């Protein structure tokens, strides 16, 4: 089983975003791996290991498209346990979802993985497009917002569950396929790979990069490529014009009675 996990670096979502002259001011940003991509790395590692024995069974290749210092986030994924990394050099401003998807298609064509596993969206732009575009470009089956993944015994298909408004939907996909993950993918028993005993319970959430992992990471291979190497060119079709904060919410009101609430909802909010 070989899994390709595209990851994006994003400004630490726990810190306050600054806006200056209509643009995000990233000068003091602390960069981290996009939360959902970190979940995808965790899911990929779980799919390719025997957690009880602590042994690997498969390969996880992480890829990022970003500036030079995005290598740090790739190393973090290697420190978590990924086997190999590919760094495609590009400035963030020269990218949009479609260009990213085209680049990932080129990487896919070189790597021929059994699965592309990625976050459902990046927590910076929240576009939620790359997985879907990539599946379309590759003409592969896709399942988005995966909450669990179960690998078929023969390793040729997987069953993905997704939480939808009406309940849980199960999709069976022949491999290779593109799967985007939601946060439940890192619950204790969300991954079944036929190797780790089904009784195994993971800790909730993505694993930390252990210190041993960190020390091993620098010895793991990292390929550096350019978009030209991959035969991808073009400029973004989506352009960022301006970034503004949403308007501050007006203060809430406390009402005395249900009657008053209904009156306000119908007369002031015009919601009824």
């Amino acid at each position, binding site marked *: 089983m070989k899994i390709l996990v595209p990851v994006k670096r994003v400004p630490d979502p*726990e810190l306050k975003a600054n806006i200056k002259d209509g643009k995000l001011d990233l000068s003091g940003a602390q960069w981290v791996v996009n939360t959902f991509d970190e979940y995808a790395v965790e899911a990929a590692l779980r799919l390719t290991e025997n957690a009880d024995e602590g042994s690997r069974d498969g390969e996880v290749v992480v890829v990022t498209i970003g500036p030079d210092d995005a290598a*740090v986030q790739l190393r*973090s994924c290697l420190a978590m346990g990924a086997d190999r990394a590919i760094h495609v050099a590009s400035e963030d401003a020269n990218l949009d979802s479609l260009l990213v998807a085209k680049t990932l298609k080129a990487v896919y064509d070189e790597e021929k993985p059994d699965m592309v596993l990625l976050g459902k969206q990046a927590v910076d732009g929240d576009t939620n497009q790359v997985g879907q575009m990539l599946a379309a470009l590759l003409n592969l089956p896709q399942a988005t917002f995966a909450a669990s993944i179960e690998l078929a015994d023969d390793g040729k298909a997987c069953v993905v569950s997704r939480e939808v408004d009406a309940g849980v939907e199960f999709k069976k996909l022949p491999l290779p396929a593109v799967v985007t993950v939601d946060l439940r993918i890192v619950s204790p028993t969300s991954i079944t790979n036929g190797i780790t005993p089904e009784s195994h319970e993971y800790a909730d959430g993505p694993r930390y990069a252990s*210190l*041993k992992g960190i*020390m091993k*990471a620098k010895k793991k291979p990292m390929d550096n490529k350019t978009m030209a190497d991959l035969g991808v060119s073009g400029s973004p079709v989506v352009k960022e014009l301006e970034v503004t904060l949403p308007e501050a919410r007006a203060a809430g009101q406390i009402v005395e009675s249900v009657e008053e609430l209904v009156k306000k909802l119908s007369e002031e909010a015009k919601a009824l």
Partner: protein
Amino acid sequence: MLSTTLNPKLVNPTEEHEMLRQTVREFTRKEIEPQAEEYDRKGILNTELLRKVGDLGLIGITIPEEFGGAGMDSTAAVIAHEEMCFSDPGFTLAYLAHALLFVNNLFYAANDDQRKRYIPKTITGEWIGAMGMTEPSAGTDVLGMGTVAVKRGDNYILNGRKIFITNAPEANVFLVYAKVDGRITSFIVESTFKGFSVSEKIQKMGMRASTMAELILEDVEVPAENLVGREGGGITNMMRNLEIERLGLAAMSLGMANRCLDVMLRYSNERQAFGKPIAEFGQVQSHIGESFAKIEAMRGLIYGAASTIGPDHRNRPASDAAKLFAGRAAKEVADSAMQVLGGYGYCNEYRVEQFLRDAKLIEIGGGTNEAHQKNITRDLCKLVQV
């Protein structure tokens, strides 16, 4: 958390250091912060959390990879202490006592047989370690210790008392200093050895998420193979470890000060008085400005010192200076935070009262300010004496 305005290469010299910081910060945010207040209030050590810290590899941070450690340097140890202390100084002190006072100390002094017997169990946090140097009537005056060890057959028989021993109530194994024929020698003592016992917990002002007690040694039988190094080698072992211990304690001060500045900044922007945020008042700015300057100075000094210290590289004056300066500075920053928060600072909610209690320890434990002043003066005088 506010990041430094200094050259980032100073605090994260390599990519590994940067990843380490990120891992520990994330671990601290998710696992350490949520439990900190409760354990401070109850005055108990979270042993399960220490196991998790072991799983992450933090206990063996300075131990070579071939012995199951991470093989990292003093700067890495500083990073770990700084980051954990942002949330829980008491727990970090317990970690320091285990990882530096016991594991690191033992590893670099022990022979391979002793390493095999004690490192694997302690590096995971399965066994907790502690170090016993201070005695009821000899603290700063280490050489004045009264605990004695007498060889009898295949054993050494230890008698004496050790006080203020961090982790003693929980520890399975201790590194104990005792005099053989008047010469200080180190021994590995397990809590189950005949004649060994531990007092009730000693209650204290701060660092309450770590525990301490007195060691009572009454004809304790220690097998000769548990003598570490050679008879009379205790001072060498002690001295070899002192610098990284002081760096760890200084880094704890830095972590505490980081937290206090963070709280002070947020609060002073939100809190209004006389129609404006209190951050606009000059006297509040004086607390913030001075605290920031102290923190960056601490950081420069601690990381500057850390890069010169390792198992084979000594730098006593720098480690003394780092702890002397950082201990006091962090206490002052915590006091400033309390002042800026007014009544809210004195009460528990924002935890600055805890950080003020905790910060004071660094001026006493692991060497008092006066001891550092004495050491520094002695080391510097050597340079000018002919």
